[in-house]
């Protein structure tokens, strides 16, 4: 049985109709992973034993007629910076090569409670720092659409595993675009929820004021289904909002008549590939056909988002990653005295990009730089947020390309950090403002997928999903996969 194209809804139907049991399903996925992952390399760790155990429990529950959770038996993958109890959580870093968390992240716990089965932990840029998954301590993950190209990052493994069908859906984390950028590069749907929508408990922090966990799925419906099960207040995370969680599946209505759509011109600037702009404009055309009122608008301060992001994120990271000192967990280099132990552990345990960001953040928080950079960055961040607030008085959603280009080739940007950072140019503003943003595939450029980004008001995920769903209904294909060639072709 070919399991690689299954969505959550289809998988649930197969299991509900007893066409297959959970163990058979999981075995099918495991053998597909064995077949493909030698090449794709999305997984750092396949958790076969635990997955089969969980599947057996579900089959037993079915036999005894128990009520099953909404995601029961559906296999997923988890980015390796999200803690899984007694399963290695490495953050793709040598530093945590041997780290076994004694606890599950809240998102993992909630999905397991809903019946989900974790197939393994997925590759990423070390500590979520990067845009191509090339910063993994372990190996590079290939883009399933073109083995010579990166899957994006930092959740490259999560996007590649979904695009190649190794899992039905996955969890990623997004601090500056780390869900949306790889999802766009791999032709799948990725959602960064509003800041505070999803618990961060158990997500190894990169920049806590922006980090959010979110789903990467094959289509918009799956995205809503996963969000339904991970969203909501968590008493272990005081930055998670204590407000109502709507049923996101019910938001999936093919109707956007009268929806006011803003098109921020800064996101269509000269840094963005005209072919990418073309595909997104066509997608906007479909929204218009469906009754949306589209209008150009402007977010003037968003051009500062990238430098502001690098100040705030590196400052937070320099402090948050200080706990990796070799004293209690992770790797420790033997040395003569305490300070040498700290130094050699951190010198050997962290890769170059992580070191660069820790150094930068440490420098920026220094007494002579603090006001000049950190305080100033916070002020500009407020301006960026104000821009969005103003725009959302007029528009229900804002639409843009997710990335300035499609997936680039391995090595192409490793020696050019500025170019590498450009790939997050269009995703970072949403993190700065704490607003939700989703990417939906909207066509191909030279055989590589393009993503359309839809941004919404804080906690306005319902509207995002409705717009994305409506677009998907009229896009011309249910979902795009590398094996079907996308269905959309070049010129849709």
């Amino acid at each position, binding site marked *: 049985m070919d399991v690689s194209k299954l969505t959550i809804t289809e998988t649930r139907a197969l299991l509900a109709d007893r066409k297959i049991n959970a163990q058979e399903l999981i075995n099918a996925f495991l053998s597909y992973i064995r077949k493909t992952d030698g090449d794709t390399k999305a997984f750092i760790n396949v958790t076969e034993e635990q997955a089969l155990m969980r599947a057996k429990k579900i089959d037993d529950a079915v036999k005894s007629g128990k009520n099953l959770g909404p995601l029961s038996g559906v296999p997923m993958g988890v980015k390796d910076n999200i803690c899984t109890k007694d399963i290695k959580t490495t953050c793709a870093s040598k530093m945590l090569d041997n780290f076994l*968390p004694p606890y599950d992240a809240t998102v993992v716990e909630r999905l397991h409670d809903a019946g989900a089965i974790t197939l393994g932990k997925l590759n990423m840029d070390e500590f979520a720092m990067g845009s191509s998954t090339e910063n993994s301590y372990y190996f590079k993950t290939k883009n399933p659409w073109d083995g010579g190209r990166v899957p994006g990052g930092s959740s490259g493994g999560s996007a590649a595993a979904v695009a190649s069908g190794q899992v039905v859906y996955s969890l990623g984390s997004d601090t500056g675009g780390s869900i949306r950028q790889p999802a766009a590069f791999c032709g799948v749907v990725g959602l960064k929820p509003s800041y505070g929508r999803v618990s961060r408990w158990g997500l190894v922090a990169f920049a*806590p004021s922006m980090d959010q966990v979110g789903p990467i799925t094959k289509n918009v419906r799956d995205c809503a289904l996963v969000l339904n099960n991970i969203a909501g207040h968590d008493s272990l995370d005081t930055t998670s909002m204590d407000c109502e969680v709507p049923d996101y599946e019910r938001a999936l209505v093919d109707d956007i008549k009268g929806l006011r759509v803003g098109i921020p011109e800064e996101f269509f600037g000269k840094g963005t590939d005209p072919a990418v702009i073309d595909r997104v404009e066509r997608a906007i055309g479909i929204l218009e056909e469906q009754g949306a009122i589209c209008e150009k608008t402007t977010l003037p301060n968003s051009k500062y988002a990238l430098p502001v992001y690098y100040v705030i994120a590196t400052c937070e990271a320099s402090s948050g990653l200080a706990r990796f000192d070799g004293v209690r967990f992770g790797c420790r280099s033997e040395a003569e005295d305490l300070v040498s132990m700290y130094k050699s552990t951190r010198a050997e345990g962290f890769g170059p990009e992580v070191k660069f960001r820790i150094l930068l953040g440490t420098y920026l*928080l220094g007494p002579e730089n603090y006001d000049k950079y950190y305080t100033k960055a916070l002020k500009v961040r407020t301006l960026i947020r104000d821009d969005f607030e103003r725009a959302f008085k007029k528009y229900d959603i804002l639409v843009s390309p997710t990335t300035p280009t499609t997936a680039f080739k391995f090595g192409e940007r490793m020696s050019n950090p500025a170019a590498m950072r450009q790939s997050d140019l269009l995703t970072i503003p949403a993190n700065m403002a704490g607003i939700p943003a989703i990417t939906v595939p909207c066509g191909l450029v030279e055989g590589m997928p393009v993503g359309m980004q839809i941004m919404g008001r804080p906690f306005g995920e319902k509207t995002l999903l409705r717009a994305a769903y409506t677009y998907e209904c009229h896009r011309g294909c249910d979902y795009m996969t590398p094996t079907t060639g996308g269905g959309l072709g070049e010129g849709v």
Partner: protein
Amino acid sequence: MREYETVIGLEVHAELKTESKIFCACTTEFGGEPNTHVCPVCLGMPGALPVLNKKVVEYAIKAALALNCEIASICRFDRKNYFYPDLPKAYQISQQDFPIAAGGYLMINTPDGEKKIGINRLHMEEDAGKLVHAGDDIARADYSLVDFNRSTVPLVEIVSEPHLRSPGEARAYLDHLKAILEYTEVSDCKMQEGSLRCDANISVMPKGSKEFGVKTELKNMNSFRALQRALEYEVERQIGLLKEGKEVLHETRTWNEQKGITEVLRSKEEAEGYRFFPDPDLMPLVIDEQWVEAVKTTIPELPADKKERLMKDYDLPEYDAGVITSSKSLAKFYDSCVGLYDDPKEISNWLMGELLRLLNTNNIEIEDSPITAENLVELLKLQDEGVISGSIAKKVFEEMFETGTDPETIVEKKGLKQISDVGELGQIVNGVMEKNPQSVEDYRGGKERALKFLVGQVMKETRGKANPQLVNELFLKKL
């Protein structure tokens, strides 16, 4: 000779006695096997997040109100970054720019009368773990072990203004501060257990100078006495340097209890920048007026008010009232006694005299006193009723302290009842007069002092049990 003036400011850390830690649900209990009161949060594990304990905020508000501080309507937590093995996250969550409270004061008594000492700020923070060195000291240890039981236990840091002008004033400030924290029941304030810690900033300057001298920061003073001694030493040291025309260096010094001196710990130039910045894991804390008002109603009578009341209600001298109210437990003990026996001054004498003396020499806290309020009052009644004499009472008291037995049993068992039988005493008086004809002569010849000697002889013969007043009367009759 040039005269110098001392300037002292104190930074006091008090552990709040909430049941659980400031950012997780682990117990704050002292002791316990190493690393048994821990969880992912207080171990700083990856992905763990702090959740603020509301009780801690309540206690901090309570302490701040008792210290006449202004409560901030919005405050914030910051990260203080530095590496040390007892600090699991490599940053301490503290409050730097926006503390929960500021601008308070407390009053102290000085030889020149009452003095107001400003409190600059009060803020909340988490404690670190504890290093246990496998050797005599850190320099000679082969390795060190870390116990994280104390990690993330709530603290308030209370920073005074540099208003203290002598080690004695510093001591008085700390005494009063401790009493306030005890009365409000926010902290145990046990310096030996580390639930109260005090650092001092101290400088000297020529008398009348407007500019403070270069200060040193003193650490590691583990008792009230140590604080005073260290400050006294440091005053002498700094004045000595200035007199020799040398400079005082801006440095952190540690008190060496054995040697009785302060030693350099690190120079301030080496001191690292802590790179404070707002902790993104915690939202700004909003405290509305209602909350503050609600906490206000839970503040009990404070030491200064209690002192006034003791002076007014019981006619106690200011000194007595001050000593008794300096510790909440002592005041409580006093209250219990006064409730049972109506002689406030006599009770005060015994508390401040015998009881405190024995407690201090045996290093026992008043809470653990082997003598209960009931037993002390019993003893005073026996004395008052003439069952035992005053000198016997002191002996019985010591016995009570040693054994914890009630006074009646001791008096009974040891046959210490006062002899008040006129016939029995008359015989003893006659005997003493016979044995000491010279003294009898002296008295009759007008030497009043001879009577005292004769009474003393009777007391000696009866091993203190004779009723001294009766003996006196008998002598006067017979002489």
